[in-house]
């Protein structure tokens, strides 16, 4: 087990494609780190550089305090679970798991004991003599994990291991991976494009965009204190709402009305003209189900609900609004960056399941004004971020830097490369 330090890692492909740009991330011993971002953000490339399948153009990759830039994958003693599992189809499950031990010329008795231990942990005992071709997706996934845990590797690396499973199994395996990692206490780097996996699994999460690190923090810090528009839009489901806003004193003018925000937040956003307000869907509520002392005039607004999706425990209400062109452009760009394709600007409001608001109603909505974030539309920076609870935010403007890199990338390869 070892800590992994990435110091100013750069990856530039032969054709000049800048896949990873000056990324520095420390993974502590025993920590579960998630690398997350939309497709083409360089997260898989970064993982493959840790394991040694991809050359490092510049920077230092330190594993357990040792520089490993020039070591072959087999000399780094890391184990990896691939997206498509990469099991050896000609070997039985037993031999698949035993493969790394056989390569290390371990005696048969030791191999047998370790394989049986791993198979017991992963409940593969009854499948040991079968070939991977006869296993279900979840079982194959477990075999791939067995092959990873069977030897005493310095760290585990996962490359989108759950993306090939169906939704239910994905949830189960997610818990399983988390439990296994806690039990073995081994340093883990996990790549995913799924923000739910990122939030639930990670001790800390590194959000990447176009090969530029945006923020490196705990899931809670990312959720509550996103460093910029990109992180704010990426983390959370349904995503954060972005509304045009103007701050006057401690009043914020939103398309639906004016709300009062705390003084210290307002102070940071004075005199900046038109801003983008970010409010998470769950920071809204049907005013009729909120305690009456909270639902004051300053914190409520009236709006016509377009569509309601009722899920039982909660309901999502959709309220369309018009955004001024200055903000519109930025929001559309953001949507593209997040792999989304939203046709209209609309507010998504998460309501209590008990709410009786239905489609077409003019509803009174309460908003938790303390949780509003205000973003600079030009740079995307979060003006109201609480820096002491935002983890590591790279200096300079990470989002603008990602834009620049994005232009270079599109220049080299018009279609952004996967991974």
């Amino acid at each position, binding site marked *: 087990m070892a800590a992994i330090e990435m110091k100013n890692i750069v990856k530039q492909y032969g054709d000049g494609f800048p896949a990873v740009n000056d990324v520095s991330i420390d993974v502590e011993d025993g920590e579960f780190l998630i690398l997350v971002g939309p497709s083409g953000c360089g997260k898989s490339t970064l993982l493959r550089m840790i*394991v*040694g*399948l991809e050359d490092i153009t510049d920077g230092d990759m330190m594993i357990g305090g040792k520089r490993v830039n020039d070591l*072959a*994958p*087999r000399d780094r*003693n*890391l*184990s*990896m679970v*691939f*997206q*498509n*599992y*990469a*099991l*050896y*189809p*000609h070997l039985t499950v037993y031999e698949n798991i035993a*493969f*790394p031990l056989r*390569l*290390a010329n371990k005696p048969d008795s030791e191999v047998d004991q370790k394989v049986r231990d791993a198979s017991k942990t992963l409940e593969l005992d009854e499948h040991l003599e079968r*070939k*991977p*071709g*006869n*296993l279900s*997706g979840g079982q*194959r996934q477990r075999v791939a994990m067995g*092959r990873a845990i069977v*030897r005493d590797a310095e760290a585990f690396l996962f490359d989108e291991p759950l993306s*090939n499973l169906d939704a239910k199994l994905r949830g189960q395996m997610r818990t399983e991976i988390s439990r296994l990692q806690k039990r073995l206490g081994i340093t883990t780097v996990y790549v995913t494009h799924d923000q739910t996996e990122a939030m639930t699994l990670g001790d800390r999460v590194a959000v990447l965009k176009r090969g530029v690190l945006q923020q490196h923090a705990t899931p809670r810090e990312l959720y509550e204190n996103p460093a910029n528009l990109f992180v704010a839009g990426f983390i959370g489901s349904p995503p954060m709402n972005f509304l045009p806003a103007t701050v006057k004193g401690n009043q914020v003018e939103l398309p639906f009305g004016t709300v009062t925000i705390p003084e210290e937040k307002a102070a940071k956003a004075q005199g900046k003209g038109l801003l983008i307000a970010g409010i998470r869907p769950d920071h809204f509520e049907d005013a009729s189900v909120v305690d009456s002392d909270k639902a004051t005039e300053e914190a409520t607004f009236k709006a016509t609900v377009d569509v309601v999706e009722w899920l039982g425990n909660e309901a999502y209400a959709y309220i369309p609004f018009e955004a001024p062109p200055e903000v519109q452009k930025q929001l559309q760009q953001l949507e593209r960056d997040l792999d989304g394709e939203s046709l209209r600007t609309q507010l998504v409001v998460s309501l209590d399941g008990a709410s009786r608001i239905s489609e077409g109603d003019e509803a009174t909505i309460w908003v938790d004004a303390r949780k509003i974030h205000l973003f600079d539309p030009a740079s995307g920076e979060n003006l109201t971020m609480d820096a002491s609870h935002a983890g590591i935010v790279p200096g300079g403007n990470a989002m603008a830097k990602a834009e620049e890199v994005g232009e270079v990338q599109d220049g080299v390869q018009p279609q952004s490369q996967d991974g």
Partner: protein
Amino acid sequence: MDAKTKVGTWIGFVLIMLWCLFPVAWIISLSFKSEGETATGSAQFLPKEPTWDNYSAILDNGDFTRALINSFGIALIATVLSVIFATLAAYAIARLDFKGKRLVLSLALAIAMFPVVSLVGPLFDMWTTFGLFNTWPGLIIPYMSFTLPLAIWTLSAFFREIPWEMEQAAQVDGATSWQAFRKVIVPLAAPGVFTAAILTFFFAWNEFVLAISLTSTTSSRTVPAQMSFFVGPDPFNPPYAQLATASVIVTLPVIIIVLLFQRKIVAGLTSGAVKG
């Protein structure tokens, strides 16, 4: 499928089987006829008095058994060497990016298309100079030059099908490039390796033009060439029964090999490697 197409398919199937297998059945039946019966010219399909005489006679014929040994040796060595070289070359072609890759592939194809006859003259001259005339290597080398391109093409297609991740997984698991190749890639390409091996073996086993031109004695003459020496005492009355017997004997190994390897050529061996 409606009944009409079904009947049609079966009629077509039976016709093709008759067309292909009748001559084979004829040869087998001939091999059991006595010499007297074939010489009378009374053509009937089944032998009147089936006899093993032809088989015992031909297996006692030292020249024929010697030719059989030559055939086996030459075909086997050519196959093994071809497959080994082709596997390595095909792997490089499938995996590595190097200049002139297309050139190598198209050149290989061009060589495979070269007519064998056009090489007989130059090879004869060269082999007599190099002392390779009438030796095993004298046949193995030209056989390989014809079978290698075919084997390389077949195998590189197979290698391309194997996901890169297999090899990378092996490397992460602690394998050297060579170990990854030997323990993961080659077993996965096994169906391709066997296909290439069978094609190579058949070519070498059946080849006649080079075998008759580049040999002079039974020390290296293979069976197809040796059979052309079965003329018998009367030039107008070749020993049909013996020729048929020899044909049956040389065909047997081919059939046995196909049946043996057929089990190895399991389609979809790679299924299960990746989510499928």
